[in-house]
């Protein structure tokens, strides 16, 4: 009765195994959406599933907001001085440079956006939490000075936990310094677009980040004066859902619009052109 007996055959893989590199796939840390990395990358690290905006380096914002090849970085040899000889600060600066690059917490320079000359600075959160010390303050001030001198609009992308406490009251005074140059910029009638990304709190939100002619914010970005943890501690209860998000700030009239990252370039360019009384990009010629 062995006619129905099947020869046991060893199972072998029919297909050749594809070598998939470990980093070809990416998973959204918020919604769990899985997609090929390239798709995340093409969407500027915005999740194709839920729209969560991952943090991207300051230099990516510069690429995004300037015409290809037009950007020249300025003030590249500027470094933080440990003026107060603050315990542990010198070491932290070395570590931060190794991790995030030599530009301190802001990449600054000039370039063009749809052909118009702009001065642009983007904060680098990976450098000590994007904290504002003398270097950030000085870069902002010089960019604004340049904008006044050349009547070229200013674009600043913020991502910061606030003032850098290792520079003590010197960092606090950067709020005053940057505000004074912004007052001059406003007086000169040179446009300034401020873009607030996750997070923008403390001394940066309470100075130049909130002083744009137009303040734009990325979806979901936490924006506020005090950080959520401090508020929670003060009031002794959990914060309402969505408190201090970009959407919350628009609702309360503190920023002009929430703009998804893929539209930042176009929105900024259109605004700057209108503020300067120029034709739409690509309209003429």
């Amino acid at each position, binding site marked *: 009765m062995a006619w129905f007996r099947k020869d046991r055959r060893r199972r072998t893989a029919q297909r050749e195994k594809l070598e998939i590199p470990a980093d070809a796939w990416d998973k959204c840390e918020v919604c769990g959406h899985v997609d090929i990395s390239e798709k995340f990358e093409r969407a500027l690290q915005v999740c194709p599933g839920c729209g969560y905006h991952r943090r991207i380096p300051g230099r990516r914002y510069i690429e995004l907001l300037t015409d290809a090849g037009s950007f020249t970085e300025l003030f590249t040899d500027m470094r933080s001085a440990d*003026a107060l000889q603050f315990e542990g600060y010198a070491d932290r600066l070395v570590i931060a440079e190794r991790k995030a690059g030599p530009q301190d917490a802001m990449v600054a320079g000039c370039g063009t956006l749809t052909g118009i000359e702009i001065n642009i600075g983007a904060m680098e959160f990976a450098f000590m939490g994007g904290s504002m010390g003398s270097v950030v303050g000085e870069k902002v001030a010089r960019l604004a000075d340049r904008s006044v001198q050349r009547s070229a609009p200013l674009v600043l992308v913020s991502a910061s936990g606030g*003032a850098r406490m290792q520079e003590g009251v010197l960092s606090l005074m950067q709020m*005053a310094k940057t505000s004074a140059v912004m007052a001059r910029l406003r007086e000169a009638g040179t446009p300034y677009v401020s873009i607030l990304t996750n997070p923008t709190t403390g001394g940066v939100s309470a100075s130049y980040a*909130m*002083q744009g002619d137009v303040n734009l914010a990325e979806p979901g970005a936490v924006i*506020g004066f005090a950080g959520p943890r401090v508020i929670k501690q003060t*009031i002794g209860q959990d914060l309402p859902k969505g408190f201090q998000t970009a959407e919350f700030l628009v609702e309360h009239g503190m920023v002009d619009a929430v703009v998804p990252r893929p539209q930042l370039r176009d929105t900024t360019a259109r605004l700057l052109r209108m503020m300067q009384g120029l034709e739409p990009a690509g309209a003429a010629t």
Partner: protein
Amino acid sequence: MANGFSLDFEKPIVDLERQIESLRRMAADRELDVESEITPLVAKLADLRREIYRGLTPLQRVQVARHPRRPYSLDYINRIFTDFVELKGDRLFRDDPAIVAGWARLDAQPIIVIGQQKGRDTKENLQRNFGMPHPEGYRKALRLMRMAERFRAPVITLIDTPGAYPGLGAEERGQAEAIARNLEEMAALRTSVIAAVIGEGGSGGALGLGLADRVLMMENAIYSVISPEGCAAILWKDASQKERAAEALRLTAQDLHELGIIDEIVPEPPGGAHTDPDGAANTLAACLESHLGELADVEPEERVRQRAEKYRKIGRIVEG
């Protein structure tokens, strides 16, 4: 000072004060003349005060700056100015009792005075939110600064706050925006502005009234980007390291003067402003008057230019 709150390091002072007082009481009861015994003790008390206050550590200065008996804005306003008329409200939302402001005269000259106001007891502290302003406080201040500009009157601000209030309503109504706006507008204000840190200069909440042509600081006042407790909690995950943080932050009047951030240190009576509020107010008044005099002759454009220039220079970087 024999009654009421005293700090640890003030104990020898308080003991001696008690001793003098009981001697006086005894003398009064028995109708004795003890002046010859009291006079050296009073001299010793003055020496002791001077000695203790000369050697204060940064953290002890923080304690003095927060002393519950320290003169607050209204104490100075009532002693220094005449004709004070308090004006309330930001015309947008409500009045913020953590900031008092209005017209007043300094030696006949009309000025606008604006100060953060702490409460003297629990009830008043609840009303004044411990001197921690909401956005409407900063907006009221700005409204009055604009009024001062319109009527060509100088602005004097008195700074004394643990910080801008970190709460739900404050965030909803734009604490960051309110401070940012004040900074920008104060930078461009065409009238002269003098800021005096009289107690606690708590970070952005202090600076929101502090961008000025001249910044003065009472001898025992502090001015810092973060409280020593907050700094210690963040850096060393331990708020009890506040002594270490107070030293590192360089927050005393002496430090700020050395760093070129304030223009003058206003000396306090030996033993601190709380031991002699009248004396402290007199010295502050004289200082305010002399700075107002110096600023009076400057043209508005020049004043704004100089102010911007002054802040433009603050910061320490290495280049090249």
